[in-house]
């Protein structure tokens, strides 16, 4: 069995027959099965890195931007809320870190 600590969550990669299960514990004490019957016939040293890569895909870390969605006009009663002008040169899509983002504005 291998333990992996990632993003405040504890995972254990447990052998079952010739396969591996990935079990996780949440900070609130609950647990779940992230994957069952994986990586057939792989050794512990091979299954560990594959499990970590899979965990990172299944449980991504980051901040997700959720709005405003400029393509959907929103109405409140008769009032139509128009999103920002995305063609304006100062408009930035803030959904990923940009390497070109100036350190000082």
């Amino acid at each position, binding site marked *: 069995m291998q333990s992996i600590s990632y993003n405040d969550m504890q995972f254990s990669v447990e052998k079952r027959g010739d*396969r591996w*299960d990935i079990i996780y514990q949440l900070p609130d004490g609950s647990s*779940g*099965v*992230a*994957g*069952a*019957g*994986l990586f057939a016939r792989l050794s512990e040293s091979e299954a560990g890195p*594959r499990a970590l*890569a*899979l965990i990172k*895909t*299944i449980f*991504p870390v980051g901040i*997700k931007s959720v709005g405003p969605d400029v393509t*959907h*006009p*929103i*109405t409140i009663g008769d009032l139509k809320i128009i999103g920002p002008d995305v063609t304006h040169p100062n408009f930035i899509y803030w959904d990923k870190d940009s390497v070109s983002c100036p350190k000082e504005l």
Partner: protein
Amino acid sequence: MEIKGSVALVTGGGNGIGEAVAKHLAKHGAKVAIVDMVQKNVDRVVKDVKDMGGEAIGIQANVTSEADIARAIKGAVEAFGKLNIAVSCAGIIRDGTMLSLDKETGKVSKKLGLDKWQAVIDTNLTGTFLTMRDAAEAMVNGGWEGLLVPISSVNKVGQVGQINYSSAKVADALMPKIIVGEFLMRGIRNIRCVAIAPGYTATPMLTGMNQDALKAILEDVHLGRLVAPEEIASLIGHCVENEALNATTLEITGGLCYPNGIAK
């Protein structure tokens, strides 16, 4: 294509029809990626598949998000090395007539909100499009044999109170014709597409409804009962195995008819 040894991704796999499809395919030897918005349901279904001795991963994702679908497909391929079957079961209803009238004045008192329209179109149509598109991309680039399964509904013929739902489901039903036509045009021969249009099915959504309303529905079903989710799952299993099924939408309704009329 054989189910045994294949890899399937099922959206909406945490409940109802999606759960039945995931379990049916796992029982017959497929490795399954269970994708749903509700983490505790994802966990439950993965655990059930584990207890059956099957192979599964669970991915909490929102099918309306392009990034989430890409992540779900990446997870399936990372876990199992390929992708062969994608079933798009994630779906919602937000029923209401387009206009409601005030009984006394006869004037419009309420309109179907854009939020209800958009949520259903985003989940049932855009979510299915994203799932089919990105699954097909993985299958083409991986050179794997594949089957795409959008889930439509018998209400693709139109249903009052469901302008949003029926509009999405008729579009889902059309997808196999367009997708397979485009595959032929582009020389893509390894992927088929068959949509499924269920009738009233015994998922928690329906079994929990007002029992009188349910009884009224059943009066129009020739079979005299709701379709079982497992029956839909077994039809999808047949679609996997029967490669002559392609570019079409199959209805599975138990013989749902218009009141005193022909079948829908």
